[in-house]
């Protein structure tokens, strides 16, 4: 029975996290000696659909219905579940993105499947289907066994590396039957800031805390983020004070991130904030208080005043970039 992977796009383009889930689903297919089918919904160019083969999908189902040009939760869930049934797929893989988190539970119910969300690694080898997922808002992991025949799993961004294969996939059109009741949501507006890196799936995150003293001091944080191609983030007190939007709040009651590099500037490291960043591969802390709890979970640190250290860091990165 093949594995089915849903390949999410943003305005017709696949994102890095999409190639991550395809690579991840390929590895699951290999574990089970089976094939991988991808399903894409929306207006994705043929060349981009062909790319999916390179990451391990033998077959790509393309749904290009005009009514499904933009994400509609119920309809997309129905289409993906229908594709799983037609393909005879017993494992459906998605990204644990904002949209993926809306889809996975509905697909799970349709397929009478156990759902594991926020998965961070491949299923364990052996007879049982056991995956590791984040729990307690990043303070822990749980090993969860899915005991159902069908399974739906969603993978967190940056948890699995993109792997190129020398495979090629065939693209075929997939016509899904749509129910009118699945199409009652109407999208009035989509606002996407294309000049900014999106936080949940960013490779590098630059985050500021109360130590920056006020919103007027974010210029240097933004400059550092721009230089590194990083997304901006902040601590809870900063978004609560209205210095930065809630969408940048990282922590237990905000967004959990898992970048390769997290740079925390002027954030002391309250337990709730640490929960949201514990999956980061490398953590750099800049804080003038040597006793700040954040240093205990950091890989690299600079004890110093952010207003002196950050401009120096910007200069050093510019120099490094010029010489590279």
């Amino acid at each position: 029975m093949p594995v089915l992977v849903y390949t999410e796009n943003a305005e017709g383009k696949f994102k890095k996290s999409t190639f991550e889930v395809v690579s991840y689903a390929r590895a699951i297919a290999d574990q089970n000696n089976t094939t991988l089918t991808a399903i894409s919904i929306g207006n994705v160019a043929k060349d981009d659909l062909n790319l999916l083969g390179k990451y391990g999908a033998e077959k790509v189902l393309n749904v290009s219905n005009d009514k499904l040009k933009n994400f509609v939760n119920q309809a997309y869930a129905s289409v993906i579940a229908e594709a799983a049934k037609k393909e005879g797929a017993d494992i459906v893989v998605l990204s644990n993105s904002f949209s993926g988190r809306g889809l996975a539970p509905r697909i799970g119910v349709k397929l009478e499947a156990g759902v594991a969300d926020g998965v961070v690694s491949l299923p364990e080898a052996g007879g049982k289907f056991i995956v590791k997922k984040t729990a307690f808002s990043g303070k822990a992991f749980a090993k969860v066994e899915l005991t159902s025949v069908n399974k739906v799993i969603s993978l967190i961004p940056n948890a699995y590396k993109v792997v190129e294969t020398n495979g090629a996939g065939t693209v075929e059109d997939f016509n899904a039957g749509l129910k009118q009741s699945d199409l009652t949501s109407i999208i009035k507006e989509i606002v996407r800031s294309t000049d900014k890196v999106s936080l949940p799936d960013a490779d590098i995150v630059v985050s500021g805390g109360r130590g920056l003293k006020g919103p007027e001091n974010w210029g240097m944080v933004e400059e550092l983020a721009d230089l590194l191609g990083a997304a901006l983030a902040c601590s809870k007190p900063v978004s609560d004070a209205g210095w930065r939007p809630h969408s940048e709040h990282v922590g237990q009651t905000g967004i959990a991130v898992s970048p390769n590099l997290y740079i925390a500037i002027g954030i002391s490291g309250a337990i709730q904030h640490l929960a949201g960043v514990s999956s980061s591969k490398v953590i750099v802390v800049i804080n003038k208080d040597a006793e700040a709890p954040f240093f205990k979970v950091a890989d690299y640190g600079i004890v110093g005043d952010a207003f002196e250290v950050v401009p120096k860091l910007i200069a050093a990165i510019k120099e490094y970039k010029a010489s590279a």
Partner: protein
Amino acid sequence: MKILVCISNVPDTTTKITFTDNNTQFNTAGVQFILNPYDEIALARAIELTDGGNGSVTVINVGEISTEPTIRKALAIGATDAVRVNAKPHDAWFVAFQIAQYVKANPFDLILTGRESIDYNGSKVAAMLGELLDIPSVSIIKKFDINGGQVTVEREIEGGKEVLEIPLPITAGCAEGVAEPKIPNMRGIMSARTKPLTVIEPVEVKTFSEVLSYETPAPRGQVKLVPADDVAKLVTLLHEEARVI
């Protein structure tokens, strides 16, 4: 307007998470349990929407008797009445199924949840309920308004937002921005004691997932401190040693 708010009883955000029984059970010793912070936002919005006698807000929790203080807190904040399904919340599917059974017998115009519980973070109950009731679901919303039988919601997407119009009934997972949590006042606390809290027994349902064990994140090595007057060294370390830039 009849609104249902699904609430969870979760460890306080300052809790240091540890496990017992060979890492198979969450260690609740000394842990204070609270109303899930996102559910507080959902509850606050529900109370605003029914302000001035314009409907009712029922809270529902799937949990054992130990969750009743949290349910009473929701009543103190301003919910009209409460229902507790007397069962351990095995997983999101179990919880969604129990709530769906209740809603099928007692219909609501709107069902709100928090975007996720801060213990398992699944973000699944709202969407599973939507599917079980065959109504739309939106996960992770930042704004919520009602005009007649239509709701206008702002949903978070990577790097932006999406504004949707959806006819009621729907389920929606609320996040920061939807409302400010409300603090119960003395009158609320007094009246919460006498507001109806109905306990119902769960219906039997097959579950599909089991938590086998827990682990805490692997500790990081000792932090490498770079002197504040040699910031260039940090860049070198990030490039050559950590290989992240």
